[in-house]
């Protein structure tokens, strides 16, 4: 009986959390798509500076990581393909797994580490120092002012970063292809491009938009629900990272399953 009530309790909590995320996302969507027509313009300047932070400044580390991932994928694929004399399929394996799965996922993980945590820390600190309260007493909605530009920046920048990640992954794979699998660089690239359908790339990009929205919602919600005291900011940041990674994987699973069954018919 106690077990049942515990299970019930955590299910309720989980649903309440998802509900809070959805409500925050919904309010941000209102300020993005409805409020501009009611005389409350979007903060483009803030969105652009966020985009710069989230996107452009992530490029060096993201490039390095996805280049290595591409190379690792090539090595792992070749290990098995070699036995069937099918090593020339390395390019295909890398291109497809990068653009369908690992490109969006690795990008999301890097962005969680850089920006999801930063959102929670920034908003959490503002909560502790009463800056969020100050915004409200000035009749400025924190969701409009702080959260919405982050949503816009993330929803736009994650797909861009994902395309970049896919490219760097394929380049990483080409290093192995050229060195060990008798490809020339141009042949490796054209083999990669030939193996990709538009669908592979588009499904990855749709997922990346959803990841961006999830990461922003979690980061901002954790920030906004920070309690009193500086140590709470640390807690919020940690929770934001862990919850984001978990929810990104869940969203990934849901959309991958959705795409799988949709392409079946």
């Amino acid at each position: 009986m106690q077990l049942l009530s515990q299970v019930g309790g955590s299910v309720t909590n989980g649903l309440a959390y998802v509900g809070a995320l959805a409500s925050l996302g919904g309010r941000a969507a209102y300020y993005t798509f409805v409020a501009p027509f009611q005389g409350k313009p979007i903060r483009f300047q803030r969105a652009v500076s966020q985009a710069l932070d989230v996107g452009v400044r992530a490029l060096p580390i993201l490039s390095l990581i996805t280049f290595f991932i591409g190379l690792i994928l090539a090595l792992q694929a070749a290990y098995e393909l070699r036995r069937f004399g099918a090593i020339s399929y390395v390019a295909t394996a890398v291109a497809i797994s990068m653009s369908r799965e690992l490109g969006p996922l690795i990008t999301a993980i890097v962005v969680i580490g850089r920006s999801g945590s930063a959102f929670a820390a920034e908003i959490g600190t503002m909560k502790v120092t009463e800056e969020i309260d100050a915004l409200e007493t000035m009749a400025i909605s924190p969701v409009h002012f702080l959260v919405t530009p982050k949503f816009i920046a993330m929803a736009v920048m994650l797909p861009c970063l994902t395309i970049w990640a896919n490219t760097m992954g394929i380049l990483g794979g080409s290093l192995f292809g050229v060195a060990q699998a008798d490809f020339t660089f141009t042949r490796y690239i054209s083999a990669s491009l030939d193996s990709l359908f538009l669908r592979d790339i588009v499904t990855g990009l749709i997922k990346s938009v959803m990841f961006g929205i999830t990461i922003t919602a979690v980061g901002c919600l954790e920030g906004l629900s920070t309690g009193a005291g500086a140590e709470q900011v640390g807690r919020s940041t940690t929770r934001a990272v862990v919850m984001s990674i978990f929810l990104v994987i869940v969203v990934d699973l849901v959309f991958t399953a959705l795409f799988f069954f949709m392409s079946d018919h």
Partner: protein
Amino acid sequence: MESSLTDSLETTATISVRDLRVNYGEREILHGISFDVNRGETLVILGGSGSGKSTLLRTLVGLEQPSSGEIWIKGQNITAISQSEMDAIRKKIGMSFQGGALFGSMTVGENVALPLREHTRLEESTIEIMLRLKLEQVGLQGFEYYMPSQLSGGMKKRAAVARALAMDPEILFFDEPSAGLDPIIAAGIDQLILELKQAFRMTIIVVTHELASAYLIADRMVLIDKGNIVAIGTTEEMRASTQPRVRQFLDRVAEPEVARELDYLQMLTEDRRSR
């Protein structure tokens, strides 16, 4: 009750609080508080830590929702109005937070100009002029390009006051204006409040536990203890009061420390929540 309330609203009261109760979870922090704030007066809300005075202030500006009761500000009951009506009222009030609550990522100038840029369609050049004016009023001329982190505690509070003044509010709220400042800087802030009072005839509400400051700036005082109003009256009336609890607070009689662990824990949580 109803008629007396509308009477008082029509005459002088800018803010009327009626039977205000505020809960945090199961605990009731304010137990049915009623008072009026007259137009143009400076009301000081006095009370010790955990008395509920900060909660009262946060409820007055709409940061906390009361569980029951009414708060009338300029003829509107803010506990029963829409978000947009509340926003309209908020544009007429200014609030200076305990730590300043300046936005760390913006310069002092951007902080002060923020309400103007958000809520008015003034030309940038006009905003620049108003910004200089507001900074001058609080004695911070020339500091518009500083970041909040480069200011001292007293200057941060002055900048916060400048930001609260930006929209030319009719009511100004102060949360612990002298907290964390040395006596000389704190006296400077008191002086600033007095100047504002004389210059603009604003209604000013100050929450503090600093007696010296309260005596200096208050027209009337409210003493709050454990979520109830203990006494309310003019500075002279309070000084002359013979009520034991008032005397204890005003004469700074020490209270025996809380001995039982449970009480102490309760006091701690209360303190933390009321922040």
